[in-house]
């Protein structure tokens, strides 16, 4: 049988989708996160590396890794650990399980949402209405803080609901809800210290404002060629309260000028600490010694191989510092309004059940269609089309990096369901009375299909925003599915049926 271009379009879309999902059959465990001060990190092991072997024992799945580690570090003596990854080898001497997390190599590029993977999710509402810009700040600040805590695999995004309320949605895979609650309720303790004495702290109104997005008091102040590239200097102004300025004057009064630096700076640095972790150290200009200054210029530099790299680096450092300084001074409180967690145990079982349910449902549908139309070729065409739709939805989801959560899966089921309905319309239209030309009947069938598409699309759009976007997944997968259906798979299906009917 010769296939028309519509069928070829479906086959190509199907192949591309399978490619986007790209099942992987590689064994081993992939490093999900690794502590920056761990010996293995210093040796060069990074997130994303695939571990194949530890001390000559093959590591096929995550359980193997846990087994080897439990046996190795039964008592905390120094052990030699040989790690073989896909591309390299590392040798370290350690006395405890390496500070990293691993997981099985993902079989596909389909990402699953938190409610399937396990982890914690919090929906956070600021106690006052925020502008879009303030929401972006809040997200930057929160990202910064979670990074300080070394929590990887965290997703923070802003969501706005139908009534214009703004929320921040934080999702952390594998974290416990209490971790997340602690983090958020802590508010972020920011302190600037000189010689271990607090000069100013966040939250206590010491910092009245931080200059940003205003070229007159913040920006990159020039670049110069240095050995091996360029360096760019940035500066921005922060405003301190009278009290903090006086504290600064009292502390700096007793500090000598560091002659080694050419007499420009004081001997002690200003240390910036976020939740008791050092995030940056700044030199203090000699002009500030003993001065009650409410305006302080914070300066730093960025380096790079080219001038552009250096400029970008300087901008990034400046932005980070500004965020750190603002972190301690969020002018509003945050409230957790929704906290969800799902144990991965139930998650794994759940995926298997869903898979089983989907397969059996599709088989049952195939059987009904076989009984109703008594044509094995057409029943197979129905199943093939539905399967292609499923593959295309999953492929597009993998391509745009969409996390499939429970609402997304419900959306996929709904799409396959309505898709089947429309295939039946097409099937029936073609087989019905032969008074009209096949082409005209096909046209009428596609008219119903297009009308149904338009109504479904319109009725789904509000879900995109309703409920703080928690049901976005449903709207996204359904819209992908019905659009692929109406553009690719339904025309192809109509073509296949037409050819089968013409032959018989």
């Amino acid at each position: 049988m010769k296939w028309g271009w519509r069928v070829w379009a479906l086959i190509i879309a199907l192949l591309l989708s399978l490619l986007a999902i790209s099942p992987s059959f590689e064994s081993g465990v992939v490093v999900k996160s690794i502590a920056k001060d761990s010996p293995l990190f210093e040796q060069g092991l990074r997130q994303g590396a695939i571990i194949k072997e530890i001390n000559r024992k093959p590591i096929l799945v995550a359980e193997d890794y846990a087994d080897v580690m439990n046996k190795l570090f039964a008592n905390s003596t120094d052990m030699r650990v040989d790690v073989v990854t896909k591309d390299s080898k590392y040798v370290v001497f350690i006395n405890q399980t390496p500070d990293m997390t691993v997981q099985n190599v993902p079989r596909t590029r389909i990402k699953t949402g938190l409610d399937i993977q396990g982890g914690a999710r919090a929906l956070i509402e600021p106690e006052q209405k925020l502008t879009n810009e303030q929401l972006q700040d809040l997200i930057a600040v929160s990202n910064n803080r979670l990074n300080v805590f070394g929590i990887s695999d965290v997703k923070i995004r802003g969501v706005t609901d139908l009534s214009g309320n703004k929320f921040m949605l934080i999702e952390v895979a594998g974290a416990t809800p209490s971790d997340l609650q602690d983090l958020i309720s802590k508010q972020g303790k920011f302190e600037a210290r000189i010689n271990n004495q607090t000069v100013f702290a966040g939250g206590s109104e010491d910092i009245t404002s931080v200059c940003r997005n205003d070229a007159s008091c913040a920006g990159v102040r020039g670049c110069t060629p240095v050995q091996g590239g360029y360096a760019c200097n940035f500066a921005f102004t922060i405003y301190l309260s009278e009290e903090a300025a006086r504290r600064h004057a009292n502390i700096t009064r007793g500090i000598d000028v560091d002659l080694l630096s050419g007499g420009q700076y004081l001997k002690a640095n200003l240390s910036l600490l976020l939740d008791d972790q050092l995030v940056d150290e700044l030199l203090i200009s000699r002009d500030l010694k003993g001065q009650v200054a409410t305006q302080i210029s914070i300066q730093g530099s960025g380096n790079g191989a080219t001038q552009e790299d250096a400029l970008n680096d300087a901008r990034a450092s400046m932005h980070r510092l500004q965020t750190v300084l603002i972190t301690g001074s969020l002018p509003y409180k945050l409230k957790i309004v929704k906290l969800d967690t799902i144990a991965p145990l139930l998650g794994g079982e759940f995926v298997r059940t869903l898979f089983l349910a989907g397969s059996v449902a599709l088989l049952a549908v195939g059987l009904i269609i076989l009984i109703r139309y008594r044509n094995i070729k057409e029943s197979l065409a129905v199943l093939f089309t539905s399967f292609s739709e499923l593959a295309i939805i999953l492929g597009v989801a993998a391509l745009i990096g969409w996390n499939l959560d429970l609402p997304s899966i419900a959306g996929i089921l709904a799409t396959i369901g309505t898709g089947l309905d429309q295939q039946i319309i097409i099937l029936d239209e073609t087989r019905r009375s032969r008074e009209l030309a096949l082409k005209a009947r096909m046209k009428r069938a596609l008219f119903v299909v297009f009308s149904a598409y338009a109504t479904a699309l319109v009725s789904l759009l509000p879900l995109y925003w309703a409920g703080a976007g928690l049901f976005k997944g449903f709207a996204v997968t359904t819209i992908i599915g019905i659009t692929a259906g109406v553009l690719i798979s339904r025309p192809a299906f109509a073509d296949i049926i037409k050819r089968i009917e013409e032959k018989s």
Partner: protein
Amino acid sequence: MAENTVSHKSWYDRTYKYQLILSVIALALALGYLAFFYSANGDIIHKDISLTGGTTITVSGANSPEEIQNALRARFPDATARSISNIRTGEQIGFFVESTASAEELKSALEELLGVKLTQENSSVEFTGSALSSSFYKQLRIAVLIAFIGMGLVVFVIFRTPFRSLSIIAAGFADIVMTLALIDILGMQISLAGIVALLMLIGYAVDTDMLLTTRVLRGEGSINSRISGAFKTGITMTLTAIVAIGVSLFFVYGNSETLRQMFTILLIGLGFDIFNTWVTNAALLKWYAEAKRLT
């Protein structure tokens, strides 16, 4: 065969207007029940904790949900517990507890009761604040309303005349009203997902109504044969959907409260859709076609 069709035809010709009375009574009963329900409960549905705010704790383990529920009721009168089981073995793998109490209160009470500490490994905790829940509920109602109006507009643009569009919209409306009434009679508590299922229902319901309208108004043959032709297609569509959803419901029944509720609501809605499309909408269209002398 020919005689059969004739006698069927005349039976339908004689009774179709009376069938409409049936539709009106059914719709009136459903609306009346919802009004009664509203006056008794202050809302047209029983909301579950995802819409009122509260806590759900899921724990792995084979403890009896009845015992846990009874023990918890002393402190939390609204607490409910249900089991979760493995679909293949039927073995209980866990249970979940729901209450409007705060997450901390419920968790510590449950820990005391079970004598184990609840951690990320053996349990999961979800809570929703009551202010947020009521705003979710408000927004989803708006979403259903916008979806319904949007659907109506699109139908109107496609079919151009008010009558044809209205008969489709009326059938969709009747589907939702009757489904809601039955849900209330069954005492089901509706969750966020349940309201999303109602949205999905709009999409499913409109498919068959559009098919019928297109066939009756643009088809060939007598009006009755157009309706019976559309019926064959439409009932296959709906039955296929019912079987697929029924099978899925069977599998997720003990496993996911969310999907269980969505599928149950869709099943109920599809059942009513058979009635509303093939009794109500078909009769309305026949009446319209005969009045306009469409052939």
